């Protein structure tokens, strides 16, 4: 199970071929020794050669990285520009038509399977209406559908978080005081309430950036987007371990980097954290 030689050799291969390929790939060595070699090389940024493509895994990964970053950033930005304003407005105008609309957006985003959402978007906007390219990565328009597919769930999550945080803050004493002093309601919402309501969604943003990686597996597969997510799925089903290990490590680094970025932003938004 899971031996890459199963896919690399055909039915006419002999036991000798099997052993020879094992020696070339280092599979004849005991597991602990294989692991030792892996760690030593990984620390140098080398993950070995891709078994399927015969090129250094790192090269392939670096080629694919921009596509994943482009998609991730687009989805992240989308989740903010949809989730944040809708979250604020639906909290301020609670029970309004807009609030109801936001609820539906959030509910679909949290309940729809992402691959199906992608296929449906592709069907309507690419096949039926022919407005946008159905798949691939050519031109700036091609990122729109994948970004919506990937970003909808997080837009929904942001919307809910901002809405409930805003409702809490708007109910607090200092907001009532500000109102009593006659501060304009625009200033109350943007200056007093919003900044405080940003903290829970920001915590979530750290998780989001990491989770966008997981989401990219599905979205990139649906839209044939040439990024790391599709590479991970392809290398996995192709039993291309050096490549897969490289992708997983890059994913982890992206996650750690994102969490760090959020911690820094935290201190910027909430001075209480900085001074402690």
């Amino acid at each position, binding site marked *: *199970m*899971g031996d890459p030689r199963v896919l690399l050799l055909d039915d006419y291969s002999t036991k000798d071929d099997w052993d020879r390929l094992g020696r070339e790939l280092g599979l004849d060595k005991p597991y602990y020794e294989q692991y030792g070699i892996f760690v030593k090389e990984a620390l140098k940024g080398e993950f070995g050669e891709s078994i399927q493509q015969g090129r250094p895994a790192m090269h392939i990964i670096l080629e694919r990285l921009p596509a994943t970053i482009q998609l991730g950033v687009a989805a992240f930005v989308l989740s903010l520009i949809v989730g944040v304003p809708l979250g604020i407005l639906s909290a301020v105008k609670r029970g309004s038509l807009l609030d109801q609309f936001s609820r539906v957006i959030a*509910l*679909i985003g*949290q*309940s*729809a*399977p*992402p*691959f*199906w959402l992608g*296929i*449906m978007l*592709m*069907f309507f906007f690419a*096949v039926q209406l022919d407005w946008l390219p159905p798949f691939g990565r050519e031109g700036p328009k091609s990122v729109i559908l994948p970004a919506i597919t990937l970003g909808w769930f997080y837009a929904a*999550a942001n919307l*809910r*978080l901002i809405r*409930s*945080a805003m409702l*809490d803050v708007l109910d607090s004493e200092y907001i009532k005081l500000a109102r009593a002093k006659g501060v304009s309601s625009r200033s109350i919402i943007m200056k007093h309430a919003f900044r405080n309501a940003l903290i*829970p969604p920001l915590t979530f943003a750290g*998780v989001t950036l*990491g*989770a966008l*990686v*997981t989401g990219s*597996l*599905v979205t990139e*597969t*649906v839209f044939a987007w040439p990024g790391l997510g599709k590479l*991970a*799925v392809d290398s*996995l*089903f192709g*039993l291309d371990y050096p490549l*897969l290990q490289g992708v*997983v490590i890059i*994913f982890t680094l992206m*996650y750690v980097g994102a969490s760090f970025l959020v911690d820094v932003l935290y201190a910027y938004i909430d001075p209480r954290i900085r001074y402690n």
Partner: protein
Amino acid sequence: MASLENNVTTGSLNPRRITLSGLWYALRRWPVFPVGILAIVVIAAIGAPWIAPHNPERGVIRDRLLPPFWASETIANKLVVERVEMEDRGRLITLTDALELDPSASLGGSVDVVILPGGSTKYLLGTDQVGRDMLSRLIYGARISLIVGLVTLAVGGSVGVALGLIAGWYGGWVDELIMRLVDVLLSLPVVLVALVFVVALGQSFAIIVAVLALWIWTRFARQVRSEVLQLKTRDYVALARVSGASTPRILLIHIFPGTINTLIVVATLQVGIVILLESVLSFLGAGVPPPTPAWGSMVSDGRDKLAEFWWISTLPGIAILLTVMSLNLLGDWLRDKLDPRLRQLE
């Protein structure tokens, strides 16, 4: 308090009349829609062998790609010409073929050709590319989703509750160890990890449940731990300890019942997530092995034929959407009823 309110009968003077506004009020107040949908899914899952009109795994190739019953025939107007190349078959037709359909056809004229038959009541929701009944597959698919969801929940939930109780009760390094493990697991990309396990160990029901349970227990552990931290400072717990109750007894008899409300809410919301994850795995080809129908793999089956045969991908997706949506709605409702404090936690 709650029991007092329940005992007060409302509107007992006039016999209740069902009015439209009363109906609307009930619909808004009680989770009628989600419970209805979930009831259908549960009944379908349990009674699949009796309800399903056809065999979900064996198709009739003659009846392949039939649309749902409400769809009418798709007719194309084709130009009659002498010879037709393969790539022009969508808009051209040869005279010989045209004459079979319409005796008055002539070169240069045009005939109407049925390119897709209408739906029939034999297959209510149509058939897929190998002639399997969509409705039957959807009904059996509910089984997979529900069983994976419930088994994962049972395994992951009990592990999570146990570890959450232990972490919250003992605190110190035990707590530290368990919670760091939770952090690590939550930071893993779960779909990728699940895929790796499936590829390395083989595609099976047990492995999918094991991987999802390994990930889902963390949610329960976190929630239960924070409940225990609050409950263990209560007087009745101190009293139980003074009167000589053993630790397992205190945890199971005195503390655990206090976490049940929270658990019901968490469980309802997490089942939805597990069902969604299972569908993602089966979409990517790492779910329960075919030909067993799973909603996720059904969506995947119809992917490349979407433009002509939209129902193959669309219907199972709607099934997943409705099920997960109902669980989310029910979870939100239960949270408001049972445990409003959880509101902030999302």
